[in-house]
């Protein structure tokens, strides 16, 4: 496959996944606003969301204070924010248009329809109580795209680069979301006051129900960390995402007669640490430390993949 095609597919999937992740984050913040808003802690939640999205510096260059409206505008409409929902769809659609021939009609139409809808979206459509509907629309559009990819793409290299992009972006997102709440998730955290944050952490990866199914116990920060990082059953856990990343990279290598590079080794190493690592060891290292390292490794893996398959 053309290297540029692989690059576009990889980024197309990353941007689509990112849009949905931002929407998930916003839904949680909106909900938290209703719960803790009255207690005066509202800005905290929105600030955490900004940190998780990685665009804090950019935000402060344009906006003076962290208000819900400003954060929503920044994370939805502002095209100066490369991780904003509109910007993500724009970038995803641009990549898709560039490599149309590598997509199936269903994938293209799901993205193109979303883009056509978004580009005529009035700013009022995300104001106040309309926000949750909009956010669930975004999530459903990305699920439609992911479903179209899973249901219609030939299981060849094109599919693998799409899947690789989705999974790497998802791993990065889970690590970041877990990290912004590392205080509340540390073993010393006080259950009574942090309970809503635990719920929020789980909701942000769509895992609140999953928690109950896996543990059948009350919420507990150690188990939440276990679920988000080490449990292969949860499709958004770090280990699950890395399992997919590793398998997908292997699939590409096998398809090319066994050609492998540093990206394959690194993916194997990261996966092994997650697959065979102990929860206690994570807390010994420090949750924040561990997650910062994971975020760094994920970024490095991304550039190793690019240097092997795209710039190679």
């Amino acid at each position, binding site marked *: 496959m053309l*290297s540029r095609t692989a690059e576009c597919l990889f980024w197309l999937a990353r941007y689509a996944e990112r849009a949905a992740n931002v929407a998930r984050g916003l839904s949680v913040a909106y909900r938290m606003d209703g719960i803790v808003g009255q207690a005066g802690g509202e800005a905290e939640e929105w600030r955490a969301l900004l940190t998780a999205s990685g665009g804090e510096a950019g935000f402060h260059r344009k906006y003076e204070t962290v208000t819900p409206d400003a954060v929503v505008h920044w994370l939805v409409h502002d095209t100066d924010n490369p991780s904003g929902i509109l910007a993500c769809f724009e970038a995803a659609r641009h990549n898709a248009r560039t490599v149309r021939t590598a997509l199936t009609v269903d994938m293209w139409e799901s993205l193109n329809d979303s883009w056509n809808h978004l580009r005529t979206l009035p700013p009022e459509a995300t104001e106040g109580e309309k926000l949750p509907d909009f956010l669930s629309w975004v999530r459903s559009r990305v699920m439609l795209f992911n479903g179209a990819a899973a249901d219609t793409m030939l299981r060849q290299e094109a599919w693998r680069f799409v899947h690789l992009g989705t999974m790497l972006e998802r791993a990065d997102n889970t690590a970041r979301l877990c990290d912004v709440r590392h205080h509340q998730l540390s073993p010393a955290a006080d259950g009574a006051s942090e309970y809503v944050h635990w719920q929020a952490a789980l909701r942000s990866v769509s895992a609140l129900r999953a928690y109950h199914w896996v543990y059948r116990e009350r919420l507990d920060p150690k188990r939440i960390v276990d679920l988000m990082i080490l449990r292969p059953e949860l499709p958004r856990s770090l280990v699950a995402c890395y399992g997919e990343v590793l398998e997908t990279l292997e699939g590409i290598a096998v398809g090319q007669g066994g050609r492998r590079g540093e990206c394959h080794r690194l993916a194997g190493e990261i996966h092994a640490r997650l697959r065979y690592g102990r929860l206690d060891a994570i807390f010994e290292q420090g949750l924040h430390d561990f997650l910062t390292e994971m975020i760094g490794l994920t970024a490095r893996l991304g550039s190793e993949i690019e240097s092997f398959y*795209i710039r190679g």
Partner: protein
Amino acid sequence: MSQAKAFDEMSGLDGEIRAPYAEIARWLRDTPRELLYRKRQEAEMLFRRIGITFAVYGEGGDPERLIPFDLIPRIIARSEWEVLAGGLRQRVRALNLFLADIYAKQEILRAVKVPADLILGNELLRPEMKDFVPPGGIYTHICGIDVVRTGPEDFYVLEDNCRTPSGVSYMLENREAMLRLFPRLCARHRLAPISRYPEELLTTLKAAAPASCKGEPTVVILTPGPYNSAYYEHCFLADEMGVEVVEGADLFVQEKVVYMRTTAGPKRVDVIYRRIDDEYLDPEAFLPDSMLGVPGLMAAYRAGNVALANAPGCGIADDKAIYPYVPDMIRFYLNEEPLIGNVPTHLCEREEDRKYVLANLDKLVVKLTKGSGGYGMMVGPHATAEMREEFRKRIIANPGNYIAQPTLALSTVPTVAEQGVAPRHVDLRPFVLTSGEEIRIVPGGLTRVALREGSLVVNSSQGGGTKDTWVLDDALVEAVTAELGMGQAQANGRG
């Protein structure tokens, strides 16, 4: 000539319905206008959804526009088509022979059939092509010939497009749209199928592979990228042929061999269907600051390691200043009389012609010799006095840049307009594929229609639209049924 009433392809000059349009006339009579308007909206949604747009960046407004699609098909009888196709084959054969001659012995100049200074001083002549014979001796593999009609028997070539003609994706998508919107109307006609065009194109491109290529040639389409107005078409054709669409940066040349960068390492390329202009092909040979091209491409080409379709330097054959001499080329190379004529053309460079043009600016269409897309032209009878004065000055300042033609009463076809169905002027661009001795033309082409009342300018950049073009085939009764089945298969499973 401008006052003459235009020939309507449905109702002729006298209002009597012509035979090929009998069924369409009945259908138009029985179809409520509201239904047509609704279908038109449906068509627009279809095109938007599939993303059949042409990109216009840097003009403000929507950067991705739809070319308006008109629902009423344009019909050509098989017998008319056969005459036309014969003329097209003849013309393209002559154009290829002309190119081969111009880049070699230049016999036509020595025979003084074409003035030497028109050729030798022309910036479209590519010295890089001198004394080099492209694989198979073919220069313009894919040629779009613009044809206009003024009467029942009267077809004229308005323009040759020997470089990188576009529009064929609209020809194909318009048919798909008609089959989806009006399956029964299509079924009641015996439409000559056109859906095999991509296959014919691939056959043509493979046949262009250089002799050095052993085994199955690797074909690619070279595009300027997503910002190009015809990007959709480049992808569409690549998809239909199952070949890669590449940008300049995806290719590189090593020891005069062209490779594309793939995830599995470099892969050799044998045939490049390039949709970028000559000047941008290779910064080492042409414009040094071109970012679109591939450094070293021309050296690889001249070494016989890769084929380019079309060959560089084809512009010398479709220059509007050369156009008046095409009938003479046909006589000179083929020893035949032209089957389709030219529109009489005045070259402003010739003093006698210039005098006539300046005295008749209100009757003539003036065009830039190097212009295209309907830019830089003036339709005299529709122009204001100021515009005519402006063109007078320009012609006097640079006579060599202008030609003029009588304002033809282009034929009209019924079209869905704001106030119901009304006649609008059309032209036709059939696509002619050449490989070796064989010339392939799928029956039909792209019909462009000037949507504004009275307008003679059909270019999409100037508010023109398109129609499906039907060649009615008596011999192929089953064809439309077959094509119907195929249309659905594509709708469900392309990709």
